[in-house]
């Protein structure tokens, strides 16, 4: 297996979550969630299927529970498909996110990050598939700018967008691809096992799955828990740990090639939280208050190398 470390001193939280935009998203998401009836049950873990008893925190009245086997973190009571469709396609939040203003702002902020992501995809494709041009199926992209950037990459022969929420829809020919992307999709997925099965089915033998996802066992999430601004329902309902992600891929029949957490922002997120860090997290409070920039940079490198960051990145292959 491999471990990855990424050094990128210029990337800031604001590149991903521009304050004015993000605060509006949070308030619209919160309004949507608050209108839903409060559930009292805790469903089995959607990753391992095991009963869960440990609630890590509550956000907007919704509990997040830990998987006893994998440390994956998922909503305690899982919403139904209809609620998810409503949230992503027919809510005030969905309308805001599809507005020109929102799309343009994020296109501008994320342009450089997307270029790096496309380069990563190309790097993995060249490494494991070779020098031809390939058909790529992109599952669940929500940003027009991303679709334009990825869709025009020179190493692709064709680019198809697929909607992961049931019923599955394709923007082009729903034929088997050589590459499948699942960028930040699993985290808002109710039935990850079913989605992986669909993705597996849609890949040619030997084809590659590349995915990114928030990981529930990452440093900032386990430190900040309910105080984390970057985790909220229904955007984040399924946050696999590296072990949970391995289990999902194995269940679907994938061969795991790389599973790493090259996140850049865990330490920054915790440091910026300052007084919001839960009081009993003494070590994290000490480091964020007393650690200088170099210490924080090295800590982030340590988290990356040891799969302890909350940004998960995976390369897997459908066996020949």
């Amino acid at each position: 297996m491999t471990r990855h470390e990424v050094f990128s001193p210029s990337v800031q939280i604001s590149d991903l979550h521009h304050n004015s935009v993000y605060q509006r998203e949070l308030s619209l998401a919160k309004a949507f969630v608050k209108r839903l009836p409060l559930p009292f049950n805790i469903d089995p873990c959607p990753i391992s299927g095991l009963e869960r008893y440990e609630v890590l925190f509550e956000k907007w009245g919704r509990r997040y529970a830990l998987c006893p086997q994998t440390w994956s973190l998922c909503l305690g009571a899982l919403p139904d498909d209809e609620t998810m469709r409503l949230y992503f396609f027919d809510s005030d939040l969905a309308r805001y996110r599809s507005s020109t203003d929102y799309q343009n702002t994020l296109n501008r902020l994320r342009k450089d990050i997307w270029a790096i992501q496309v380069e990563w995809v190309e790097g993995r494709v060249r490494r494991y598939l070779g020098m031809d041009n390939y058909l790529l199926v992109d599952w669940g992209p929500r940003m027009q700018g991303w679709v334009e950037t990825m869709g025009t990459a020179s190493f692709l022969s064709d680019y198809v967008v697929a909607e992961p929420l049931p019923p599955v829809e394709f923007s082009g020919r729903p034929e088997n691809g050589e590459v499948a992307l699942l960028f930040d999709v699993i985290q808002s997925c109710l039935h990850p096992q079913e989605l992986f099965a669909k993705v597996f089915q849609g890949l040619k033998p030997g084809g590659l799955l590349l995915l990114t996802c928030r990981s529930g066992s990452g440093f900032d999430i386990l430190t900040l828990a309910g105080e984390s601004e970057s985790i909220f329902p229904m955007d984040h309902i399924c946050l696999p740990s590296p072990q949970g992600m391995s289990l999902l891929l194995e269940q679907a029949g994938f061969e795991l090639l790389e599973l790493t957490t090259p996140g850049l922002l865990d330490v920054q997120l915790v440091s910026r939280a300052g007084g919001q860090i839960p009081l009993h997290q003494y070590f994290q409070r000490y480091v964020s208050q007393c650690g200088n920039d170099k210490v924080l940079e090295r800590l982030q490198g340590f988290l990356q190398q040891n799969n302890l960051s909350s940004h998960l990145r995976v390369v897997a292959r459908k066996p020949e």
Partner: protein
Amino acid sequence: MTIKIAIIGMGTMGRIRKQTIDAHAGCEVIAICDINEAISREFPDLPFDTDWQSTLAQGPDAVMVCTYNNAIPDIVCVALERKMHVFSEKPPGTCVSDVQRMIKAERKAGNRVLKFGFNHRFHYGVMEAKAIVDSGRYGRVLWARGIYGKAGGLTFENSWRSDNDLAGGGILLDQGIHMVDLLRYFLGDFVEIKSFVQNCYWNKISLEDNAFALLKTNEDKVAMLHSSATQWKHKFSLDLFLEDGYLCINGILSSTRSYGEESITFARKEFEDETTAMGRPREETIYFDRDDSWKHELEEFYQCIKGKNSVSVGSSLDALRVMELIEEIYKAGQG
């Protein structure tokens, strides 16, 4: 059908090869040979001989030659003559004329496979580097710098590797050959060579313990090579600088892990800001925790025998070119 393999030479490499073959579903070791008879006791279930001719007489489909360098050409040529496929450790003999002899035998043997053990090309750091270079995303290679060094050690002077008759060359031929092969792999064939080849420290041996070379291709790409047996902390390092970026392989996984972690760091060049971007550009490092190079190497040999591939790594042409370069480095370095 299982490929039946005989291993000639059961030292360190022979044992590594045996372990790898044992783990391969399509290959089987059917006989072993070593000049040290005591080794037979470690492998009681396998036919054993101290004479390689007798081992070849057992009729294996393929032979793995893991002997001293000076014994390689005879065994390879006879095995090919008997229509066996051959995998031989590096170096491919002791000199260019040895390789030429083996190539002649290969041509005579027709469709038999001859492959040499340049396993470093199958290390994950090198495979990653090759994928980046071939993708063209950083443009063409401008120059390279390769360092491969070991400490020698207490037994170094008495080792067969330090015996001119058995080895035919010093650290450059023994270990540096891997770096020469890699530099050629990434930059192409070299046409101009300048070098110093000398014995700096291990005075009881007549062979070189350090070789420094500058090699230039006909496209003016320059590679700097240092092969050393006085590198008191083991080191493997290969830097490749391209028009728009760079990649640095550091460490190489070995059974003892003495060359450190194997990693590759790569980045796009950034000209935006002299202090920040050029001093601290965005870099990605991949660390590799596993060495599957022996496995990949055997798999390629197996696929070639099955007729599904031709030799892409360690062909007789690779062997010839590398040995020509090494002879040139020796010649230029010894004035």
